[in-house]
Each structure stands twice: as C-alpha cells, then as structure tokens.
C-alpha cells in the first residue's frame, strides 16, 4: 500500500507541477536566483583559494652570495640545507648562470648590456633558492641562514643577503588581504544565501497558500496528512531539480564569458575551466541544495493548512 501511495503521490506531484505552469515557472525562477548565489559562493571561494595557494607557492628564500664566495662552500651549504627536514628543494644558480639569465632578461635593453660590457667582469654572485615544505618554516630557515652558516672557512661571511625579510612583509600583507577577502566574501554570500532561501521559502508558501482550499477539501474527504502533503513536497522537489538544471546551464555561458577575465585578473584560475573540470561536484551541490530547499519549504508551508 505504501508503494502504491508513493507512486500516486509522485504522479500527482508531476501533474500539479504541469497544471500550475505559471506558479511553477515563477517558483523555479526565484529558486534559480538562490542556486546562483550558492554557485557564486563556490566560485568565489575557488578563486580566493587558488590565489592564496598561488601566493604560497611563490613564497621562497633566495640566498645571494658575495662574488668571491668559493663555489665549494656554496655547494656545501646547499647540501646542508637539503639535509634539513623542513626544506623541500634547494636550487643552485652559479655566477655564470646568473649572468646568463640577467643578459637574457635585458636583451632589449642596450644601455644595461653596454654598462655590463664596460664593467668587464661578472658583477653577479651565485645564489641558492630554498623552498620549504610548509610556509611557516621559512622563518626558521631564514634565521638559520643569517646566524649559523654565514661564515666561510676564512672567517668572512660569504652570504651577501637573504631576501626573506624584504619579501616577508609583502607576502604577509597579501596573505592577510586574501584571508579577509575570503572571510568577507563568505559572510556576504552566506547572508545572500539566507536571504534568497527565505525568498524561495516565501514564494513556495505563497504557491501553497493558493492551494489552501484544496488542502482543506482533501482533508475533508478523508485524506491523511501524508497523502495531502506528499504531492506538494514532490512539486517542491521538482522546482529544485528544474531550477538546478537552469542554473547549471546558465553558469555555462556566464563562466565562459568571465573565464578570460578571471584568468588575467586572478592568478591563473580560469573559472570556466574550473566549472567544467569540477562539474560533477558542482552539479551535485546545486542539485541537492535545490531539492532540499524545495522539499523542505513545501513540507513546512503545508503544515499550517493541515490542521483541518
């Protein structure tokens, strides 16, 4: 019997959805707005996370050596650093390589190249680029570099400078900007989601208000609460599914259009690519949110009229 009832409720829900086409359409459109807001939250947090990740990846320490530093000492330091557990990677750039890179960077800059020529010798020192496994460990590595191993064999420091301290301020500031942007963005979107869920709830309540007479008739001919409420919950769920499909289709041109802009503006995240690669996940989030909001709103909205 339960199965027969469920079948009847579902069929009746689909019929009601179709027969109240105008009410259905407006409810679906309102719900599309809600789901777009939820989708926006997903994209905004993806962009901010990608930016944060990108900045963290850019974080490293460069150790510049004086031009007279013996190569063997630099290599020894590289070995020592590599043996430290918190260090992920140490890249050695020799003086010759540094000069090469410099020339390449300035190949269109006649004056600079001429000045270099004039100098006669290589003014650049060797350098080590250190990447830590965890951004929090840079402080320790930088401290180690400036205290412990600055002495070469003859007692004078071979380290010219460690750039961590200059970059640190900029990196910290950027990180905190992104952090607060993320927090602000999340709060804003949560507020927007709450507002649009309430609007959806009210729209569905209005749609059911129209049917209050119907609900009381059903009660008077002896239908129990489950049987009266069922079709409304089904209709609410259908609103959710249809709105989710609309929303996902809508995201396609929107993200495509915004894709190039986000790629240039933020650090390398194209939201169109993000959308297409994470489509499965976004699909499920949007679909389930839509179904849950629709079904729950209907369930709650009918309750008021079931007292008959």
């Amino acid at each position: 019997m339960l199965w027969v009832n469920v079948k009847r409720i579902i069929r009746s829900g689909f019929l009601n959805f179709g027969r109240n086409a105008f009410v259905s359409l407006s409810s679906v459109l309102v719900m599309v707005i809600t789901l777009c807001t939820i989708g926006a939250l997903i994209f905004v947090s993806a962009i901010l996370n990608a930016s944060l990740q990108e900045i963290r990846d850019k974080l490293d320490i460069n150790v510049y050596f004086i031009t007279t530093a013996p190569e063997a000492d630099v290599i020894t330091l590289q070995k020592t650093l590599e043996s430290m557990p918190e260090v992920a990677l140490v890249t050695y750039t020799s003086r010759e390589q540094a000069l090469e890179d410099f020339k390449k960077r300035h190949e269109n800059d006649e004056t600079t190249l001429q000045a270099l020529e004039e100098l006669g010798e290589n003014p650049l020192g060797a350098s080590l680029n250190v990447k830590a496994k965890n951004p929090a460990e840079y402080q320790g590595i930088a401290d180690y570099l400036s205290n412990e191993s600055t002495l070469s064999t003859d007692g004078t420091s071979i380290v010219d400078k460690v750039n961590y301290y200059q970059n640190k301020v900029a990196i910290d500031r950027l990180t905190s900007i992104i952090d607060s942007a993320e927090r602000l963005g999340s709060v804003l979107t949560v507020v927007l989601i709450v507002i649009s869920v309430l609007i959806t709830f009210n729209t569905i309540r209005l749609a059911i208000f129209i049917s209050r007479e119907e609900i009381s008739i059903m009660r008077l001919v002896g239908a129990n609460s489950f049987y009266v409420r069922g079709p409304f919950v089904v209709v609410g769920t259908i609103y959710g599914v249809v709105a989710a499909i609309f929303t996902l289709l809508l995201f396609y041109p929107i993200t495509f259009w915004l894709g190039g802009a986000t790629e240039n503006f933020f650090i390398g995240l194209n939201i169109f690519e993000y959308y297409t690669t994470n489509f499965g996940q976004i699909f499920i989030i949007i679909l389930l949110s839509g179904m849950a909001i629709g079904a729950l709103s209907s369930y709650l909205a009918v309750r008021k009229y079931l007292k008959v």
Partner: protein
Amino acid sequence: MIYFDKVSKVYPDESVALQDVTFGIEPKEFVSIVGHSGAGKTTLVRLILAEDRPTAGQVFFGSTDIHSLKHSEIPEYRRKIGVVFQDFRLLPNKNVYENIAFSMEAAGRTDEEIESDVPHVLELVDLGKKIWNFPHELSGGEKQRVAIARAIVNQPDIVIADEPTGNLDPVNTYEIVQILKKINDLGTTVILTTHNKGVIDSLGRRVIAMEDGKVVRDDRQGRYSI
C-alpha cells in the same frame, strides 16, 4: 447513528452558534435540517465532520465520541462520511475522474477498484460524458453531481449535504434532490441542510427546524415552516 448530546458551540467572538442541542439520527433515515442563515445548520455539519469542537456536550458517531478522536484518527473517521457542499469544493486542478479517484485513493482503494468504480458512479449521477473535464468546464449542476459522486463512491455510512442546492436553479435542484433520495433508498443515511421550502415539501421526510442555535421543532413527516 449520530447523536448530539446537549451540544453547545460558542465561537471565540462570543457568538453562540448552538445552544444545548440534543437529537439523534437513525440509520437509513433521511433528515432535513432547516433554518435561516445563522441558525446553526453549518455548525452542526462542521461538528459532525470534526472540523470544529463543541464548547460543551458530546457528538457521537455510533458509540464513538467524535471529539475524543486523535488528529491522526480523523481521516479514517471522515471516510465513513460523504460530504456535499454548497460551493461544491472540487479540486480545481484535477479533472472529474481524478476528483473522484482522489477520495478513493485517500481511502486506500486499489487502482483496479478505482478504474471500475469511478465510471460507474459517474453513470449513476448521469455525468459519464464529462469524465475528463475539469471543474471550471462544468455547470453548477454538473459540479454538484460530481461532488455527490465523490461523496458516495466510498460507500459511506452517511452522506451529509450542506445546502447542496443553494447555488442551483430549480431544475438542477430537483435533480440533485432526486439523486439524494436515490442514495437514501439504496440504504445510506442522508442529512440535508437547506432553506429551500420546495425541497422540504417535496421530500415529506423528517425535518429538524433550528432557530438561533436551538432545535425548535422535530417532525417525523415535516413540512417547511419557520
């Protein structure tokens, strides 16, 4: 079958709808309840349907005190009663077939029963041709016949018709009353509320007259006079 025991109903705004009403209705009876608007006829119906609770007294259906039923037991109870309203109260989004099928579905009948009983009951009220029409495509008399078909399809113990002819012309009124008589002849108790003199006089059955929430007369073979 139905027994009102010293029933009073006072609405929250202090208006008295029923005052110490006592009467009983036997199985297979055809009872008309007459009175002016506001005499308490509709309140009686609402109490029988458990839409409202009495302020004092008890209403019995058989041996059950209707208002001691739990909220979840009310649907089951209502399936024993068929109701016809003045304003028809059909489900606007369902066609004639579905309107009648709905009350059968609510009563937990099988698809086979529904498929065979719905056309049958529509033949009974002479609406076989309008089976797929929606309520807004029907005339008042046709709507009321659908409502009657819905009321009797579950073979209830009792049919309550609350001013069923109030919105109908004389020809349709006559037809509806004939159908109600037929239902009663087939063994179902019928309670009819009305203020139509012609209907009462043509019936020649028991009449309970009400005034200001009180039963003022109860005649076995009554005529309309207030």
